[in-house]
């Protein structure tokens, strides 16, 4: 962040949320059950009380010491217990078959 602090202050790197990797996104397929999604992605840390059919996976890293910022996000939607759609800012790697789910680019 911009405000000048003392030179060289050691600041703790703050990481938050579930780690989302390319290979996790590749394994996601429409129609998966909740437990299958949980097996691939792990338990979501953001489970909104008001909207049980939607799980949000978010990962932020704010490491001011060596100025590394990371921000990934993936939201999965369920319809009658099955994965109906998921949006993420991580593009699935090429070799995934074309008819993959609607993984449009989430504007960050």
């Amino acid at each position, binding site marked *: 962040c911009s405000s000048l*602090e003392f030179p060289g*202050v050691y600041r703790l790197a703050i990481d938050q949320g579930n780690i989302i990797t390319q290979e996790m996104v590749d394994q996601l397929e429409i129609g998966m059950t909740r437990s299958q999604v949980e097996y691939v992605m792990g338990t979501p*840390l953001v489970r909104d009380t008001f909207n049980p059919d939607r799980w949000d996976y978010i990962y932020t890293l704010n490491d001011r010491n060596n100025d590394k910022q990371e921000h990934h996000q993936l939201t999965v939607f369920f319809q009658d217990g099955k994965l109906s759609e998921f949006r993420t800012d991580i593009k699935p790697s090429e070799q995934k078959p074309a008819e993959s789910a609607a993984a449009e680019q989430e504007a960050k």
Partner: protein
Amino acid sequence: QNSLPISDIRVEGLQRISSETVFSALPISIGDRVSTRTVANASRALFGTGNFDDIQIGMDGDVLVVRVVERPAISGINLEGNKALATEALLDGLKNAGLAEGQVFKRSTLDGMKMELTRQYVSQGRYDASIETDVVAEQRNRVSISINIDEGSNATIEHINIVGNTVYDDETLLDLFELKTGGLFSFFSSSNKYSREKLKGDLEKLNSYYLDRGYLLFNADSVQVAISPNRQSVYITVNVLEGDKYTVSSAELSGDLVLPEEDLKRFVLVQKGQVFSQALVTSTEEFITKRLGNEGYNFAKVRGIPEQNEEDKTVDIKFFIDPGKRTYVRRIDFEGNARTSDEVLRREMRQIESAPASADKIELSRIRLERLGYFKEAKVDTLAVPGTDDLIDLRYKVEEQSSGSLGASVGFSQDSGLLLSANIQQNNFFGTGKQVGFGVSRSDFATSANFSYLDPYFTEDGVSRGFSVFYRTTDFEEINVASYTSDTYGTSVNFGYPISETERLGFDLGFNRTTIDAGVSAVKEIKSSPRLLDVIDNYFVSKLDPATGTYTVAEVLEDINNLPSSALVDSGEEGFLDKYGEEFNNFTAGISWRQSTLNRGLLATRGASQSLSLELAVPGSDLEYFKLGYEGQIYVPLTNSLTLRFRTELGYGDGYGELENLPFYENFYAGGFGSVRGYRANTLGPRSSNADIYRISQAATAIDASGNALALSAQGAYVLDPATGLLLVDSANNFRRDTDPFGGNVLVEGSMELLFPLPFVKDQRSVRSGFFFDAGNVFSTQCGATQVNCSTPDFSSLRMSAGVGVTWITGFGPLTFSLGRALNPEKIDDTEIFQFSLGRSF
């Protein structure tokens, strides 16, 4: 058979039990019809209360008659003959089983207890213990129970024999065992008393001894334990199958490595060609599990599976890695912080909630809590969140201790006399984590008032900000230093911030105003001498005829003002105050670097800490000087109870610009606590030289007309030597006062301590005891001509001492005792064997 409804209920046989208890327990009431079934329920209900031995229910006409025999109550229990099992423990056991004073006596519970006691004795190896109980009836249906126990003696081990060991002989193997046959110390240590757990432990040691030396198939399962018919001695035989010695042919990693192979390869201690060692396999497993833990896989499992091939006696070891799921921390809770507020603990956390878990961050957070010094101990539990396989909650349990003293404290320490102070020095001010010191303290040598405030977490990253205001008048003579007093007051602001996990930088800016009052007989270094004492205001010319001892003429008192200046002797060297005056306004700036990996804030036992500091009176201050300081200490654990501690402190100060040397009131001192014990505090190093004083004789004499002397004035007066026309001078030595320590501008000090746990003390966390060897001294780069014991730094003149010291953290702060013997004192040094103080830990 249902007879007529009952009109009344009569209870017979009650002695102590109230009828209401019976009625409330009885399921029948007046007006009910009675049948055999209801009678059966009634007696069962009454039995249920546990108060009755016998119950008969019958009808007398239409009146229900309940005849009961009450169970006796216990009036007292006495136990004899129990030494190994404490009486309270036994009584508690009895109480839980329902056998206690005032309770209802049940024979079955007593017999059950008897069997339980025998089992406890047998498990302690007291095979021939025997227990007799008898029950004595007393009036009012009460009984007293007496249990007498013959505990017998503990079966001692007569003979341990290992059969089938060819590679290592009995003697080396038996050395591993905790159980020993009777030896010299056996009566003292209970090592020859048989216990099944100890034997199990010893067999494990035997197992790992062989497994760590290549004997993969070693087996020591068949063990016979036998006792002699008189049950006094135990004989143990261990039959072993050694098997062959195996060497490692390969070691690989397999399963889901998560990290690149080379990253984990360096943790594999098992190499090709090595003799197989189970210890190396286990530590490899632990290292890899820990490494995966740091990557967030807290539930990782790593197992090294050996596959032996018989022919060439080699073994391939495959490390199966199952990382389990990446784990996340859901919530972090604290327990035990009744006084410290939640944020003070939470800001020390390196592991954040709703984030990937990391084993070393979790452990580091625990150590940081202990490093605060507010807690005796900090523990952490990792609890899996039910219903998930990758979420954990952390629970940090702390035990608070007093981190400072609150309220008035009356203290006494030899070097500062009676210490009356009302100070609130709280490092954890009402649990807010802020450090507040407000104190007014008066002792023989110093009265001071100060207020200091420090917020270690001004920003959440640990940038600290604080300020302090102080006023202090010190009479240095009282603390064995040359006689002068200094009054200083001032204020300062300070900041500090971490530059890494263990290092901090600190800055402070301050202003202070010091006035020095040299007092009457100030030493030469402070004020030139000889000098006129302003208290005496007349002089006279001596008229004494030395030959006849009579006065030729009356001596007349002259007023001091008309003393010719020529009468004053040339004062030679100038003192400090002469050169620089007696009041100084200084602006100070300081920078410090501090690094600490100590494991605990107070009474650390592991790690090291060091700090480098520079204090500068910036140009424009009246006195321009700087002081450089270095402090370092390191703990080297020898065994799990003995630790070696090395400590050193160095200091150098000097003037710059037109100030040639460090102002004397900023000198370093040595000796006493936290320095070289065994010498009185602040007495090491250069001494000041006493001032010469103009001769003061007793009252001037005058002669009356008839020639006899007539005393003129009670108060002394200066004596002018008629021959030289100068005031006579008394040089310091005829005062015969010994010289005073004066300190110096170079400090060299260090100590080596062997810390050991004080025996008989249960809670070791607030006590520290150790043997010490101290060495140190104060030197000066500009010794005054007449200064005694003053030298430039050289190691041969370091003063040494050795002894033992104990520190105990009490509710009022650290209480310290030390017994130290000076090893190479010079004649001039003041040594002191016993030293103690309250409020300062060494």
